[in-house]
C-alpha cells in the first residue's frame, strides 16, 4: 500500500491539485483570491509558489468570466480547475455552465469538448447566513451534460477531485465546507473532532482516483437505507445511531452519474429509504432520489421514501440549527419510516 498520511479535507484537495499540476502542464487553477493567497479556505495554498504564477492565479470577481475563461481553456485542450469562492455565488456563472460547458460536446457533434472542473465550497452549519450556506447541487443535476460530485471525507475528496480533473466532461465539484477541518455529525454542541481520528482521513500521498458514479456504503445495515452526500453522510450515521436502527448509510459521492445499482440493491434489501440533504426540500436532489427509488423498488417498499432536507426558506443566520437537518430530524424520519 502506498504511503499515507493524515489529511483534513482541505489538505486532501490541495494534494489532488498539486499532484495533477505536477503531472500535467495542462492542469491549472484560478479563482477569486485563489492565487497568491491560496483561496479563502486555503485549498489552493502554495500552488502558485510551487507551480508558478500562470498556473495558479487570482481572477477578477466575475464568476461568469471565470467560468467562460475556463471553458475557453478547456476547449483549447487544457484541464482548468476553477474555484467559485462560495456556491452561493455560482449563479452568475450558471448560464456559462448550463448553456455552454454542458452542451459543447453535444452541439458540436463531438468536435469540441470541455473538460473543466468547477470547485466550490457549499453547504451550511457555519453561521454563514443565506449567502454563505447554500447547497445548489440539484440545479446542476437537472442539466444534461454536467456531472455533479460531492465528497464527504478527505480520502474521497482527493480521489474524486483527481478523477474529476481527468474526466473528459465538465464536472461541478461541491466541497462541503463544514467538513473542511473535521467531520461533523450535526451534534453541534459537541466539540468538533479533527479529521485525524478518522480512517477516511488516512490519505495516500501519491496519486489515486475514486471513480465518478460509484457510491460508498458507509455503514452496512438491514433495516433502512439512508441516501446522503456531503456533510449529511456524517449526520446520517449519527442519526442511525441515535435512532438505534440498523441503517445502511450510502454516501452517493457522485450525484450525476448516480450509482443506481448500489441504491437499488440496498433498498431492495431493506425495503425502506430515507433521503437526506441540506438544500431546500422542494425540487432538491432528494426529489429525484425519492422518485427513482419508488419507480424502481416500489414493490419492495414497506413505507414511503422519506425526505429530510432544508426548509423552503432562505438560510437564516440566527436559526442555523433549526434549519440545518441535524441527527434528530433524520432520526425521526428513520423512525417514522420504520413504523410505516
Amino acid at each position: 500500500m502506498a504511503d499515507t498520511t493524515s489529511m483534513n479535507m482541505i489538505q486532501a484537495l490541495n494534494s489532488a491539485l498539486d499532484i495533477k499540476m505536477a503531472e500535467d502542464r495542462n492542469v491549472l487553477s484560478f479563482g477569486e483570491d485563489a492565487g497568491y493567497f491560496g483561496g479563502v479556505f486555503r485549498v489552493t495554498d502554495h500552488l502558485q509558489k510551487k507551480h508558478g504564477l500562470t498556473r495558479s492565479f487570482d481572477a477578477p470577481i466575475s464568476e461568469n468570466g471565470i467560468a467562460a475563461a475556463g471553458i475557453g481553456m478547456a476547449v483549447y485542450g487544457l484541464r482548468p480547475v476553477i474555484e467559485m469562492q462560495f456556491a452561493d455565488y455560482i449563479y452568475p456563472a450558471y448560464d456559462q455552465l448550463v448553456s455552454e460547458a454542458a452542451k459543447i460536446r453535444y452541439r458540436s457533434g463531438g468536435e469540441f469538448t470541455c473538460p473543466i472542473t468547477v470547485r466550490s465550497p457549499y453547504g451550511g452549519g457555519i453561521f454563514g447566513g443565506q449567502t454563505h450556506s447554500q447547497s445548489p447541487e440539484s440545479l446542476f443535476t437537472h442539466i444534461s451534460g454536467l456531472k455533479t460530485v460531492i465528497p464527504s471525507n478527505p480520502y474521497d475528496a482527493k480521489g474524486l477531485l483527481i478523477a474529476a480533473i481527468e474526466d473528459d466532461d465538465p464536472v461541478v465539484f461541491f466541497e462541503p465546507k463544514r467538513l473542511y477541518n473535521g467531520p461533523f455529525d450535526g451534534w453541534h454542541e459537541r466539540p468538533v473532532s479533527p479529521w485525524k481520528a478518522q480512517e477516511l482521513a488516512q490519505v495516500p500521498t501519491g496519486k489515486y482516483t475514486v471513480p465518478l458514479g460509484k457510491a460508498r456504503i458507509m455503514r452496512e445495515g438491514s433495516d433502512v437505507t439512508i441516501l446522503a452526500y456531503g456533510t449529511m453522510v456524517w449526520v446520517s450515521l449519527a442519526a442511525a445511531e441515535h435512532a438505534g436502527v440498523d441503517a445502511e448509510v450510502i454516501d452517493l459521492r457522485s450525484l450525476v452519474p448516480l450509482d443506481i445499482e448500489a441504491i437499488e440493491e440496498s433498498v431492495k434489501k431493506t425495503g425502506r429509504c430515507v433521503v437526506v440533504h441540506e438544500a431546500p426540500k422542494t425540487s432538491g436532489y432528494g426529489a429525484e432520489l425519492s422518485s427513482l427509488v419508488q419507480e424502481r423498488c416500489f414493490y419492495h417498499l414497506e413505507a414511503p421514501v422519506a425526505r429530510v432536507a432544508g426548509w423552503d426558506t432562505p438560510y437564516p443566520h440566527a436559526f442555523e440549527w433549526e434549519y440545518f437537518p441535524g441527527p434528530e430530524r433524520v432520526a425521526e424520519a428513520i423512525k417514522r419510516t420504520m413504523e410505516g
Partner: protein
Amino acid sequence: MTKNTPKLSLRVPEPPARPGDKADFSHVQIDEAGAVARPDVSVSPEVTRDLAFRLVRVLDDNGKAVGPWDPKLDVETLKRGLKAMVLTRAFDDRMHKAHRQGKTSFYMKCTGEEAIAVAQALVLSPEDMGFPTYRQQGLLIARGYPLATMMNQIYSNAADPIKGRQLPIMYSAKDYGFFTISGNLGTQVPQAVGWAMASAYKGDDKIASAWIGDGATAEGDFHSALTFAAVYRAPVILNIVNNQWAISSFQGIAGGIETTFASKAIGYGLPCLRVDGNDFLAVWAATQWAAERARTNQGATVIEFLTYRHAPHSTSDDPSRYRPGDEGAHWPLGDPVERLKQHLIGQKTWSEDDQKAAEADAEAQVKAAAKESEAIGTLGQSRPSVKTMFEEVFASEDWRLVEQRREVGV
C-alpha cells in the same frame, strides 16, 4: 436639497425613423477615406482612445485605396476576397429561398456584412480560433469549407456533421478555425478570451478572434470578456459588428446613441479601432493591426465594424414592421461587394464581365452543392440515426441515457 423642476422623466431612446418615415442616417459621422492615422502596432492602448470616435476607411468614393491603412494587397488576394464575398451572398440567397421552399426550418443572412467575416478569414489562420456569431458564414466560405456540408447542417440531414442536433446555421468546424456556434448571445466572447489565454499559457502561437453584435454587447459576457482580456493581456481580437439593428431594436437601445461601441474598450485600457465594415481593405488592415498586436504579446484589441443589416434578422423576421422599407438604400457606407469590385475595376484588373462570371460561378458552386446535399435530403427527408440523439451528452453514455435510448427502441 435641490429638488427638481421639472419633474423627473424617463427617457426611452427611439430610432430616427420608423416605417413610413424617411430613412435618416444623419447621425452617422463618417471620416474621409484615408483621414485617420494608423498608429504603430506597438503603441500603448491610450494612444488609440481617439480612434474610438473616428472611422478607419481605405476605399474612397471612387473605389481608390488611400491613406495609411491601405494594406496594399496583391491582386490575387483582392480577387479571392471578392469571390468569397460573392459566393457568400449567393449561398445566403439560395438558403433563404430553401427556407421558403420548406427545405429547412430557419436561416440567417449576412447580406451587406460579408466583408467583415471574409477579410478576417483571410488575414487569420485556420489554426487561430474564430468564435463567431450566426452572421460569420463568410469565415467558412472564404476558407473553402464545403458548401454542401454547410447545407447538410442546415438541412439536419444524415450527413450533418453535428448530427441534426443544432438549429440551422449553427455550424461547428474545428479544422477551419470555427468554434461551434451557440444560440446564446455573447457567451462565446469570454470563451474566446479563455482560449487565447490558453494559447498564451502554453507558449503557443495561435490567437483567437470573437464576434459579437451591437445588441449583444449589452450582455454581461461582453464585460467579462473585456475584463479578462485586459487583465491577462490575452491574444484575442474582439470584433463588434455594429449593423445598426438587433432584431427590431436599433443600436440606441444598446447605448449606441450615447457613444460608439468601440469606446467600450477605453474603460478596460484596451486599444480600439472603429472601422468601415463595408470596406474590405479597411477590415483587412484593422484585423492585421490587431492580429499583430496579439501575436506579439501586446494583448487584445477591440474593433467596432460599422455596417448595416440589409436582410431581415432571420427567416422569422419582417423588418418592414419596425424600420423604413428603404432604409438600407440610404446606408451611407454602401455595399462591400460593390465597393471592392469598383476598386478592382479602377485598378483595371477586373471588369463588369468578370464580375458577372464570378457571380455565375458562385451560383453554379452553390447549385452543385445544393444538388449534392439535397440528394442526401432536406429537413425531415433525411436525418442522422435517432440513436445519435443519446450520444455525446457525455464522453460515454450513463445508465439513464442507455435506458432512455432503449425506451425509444434504438
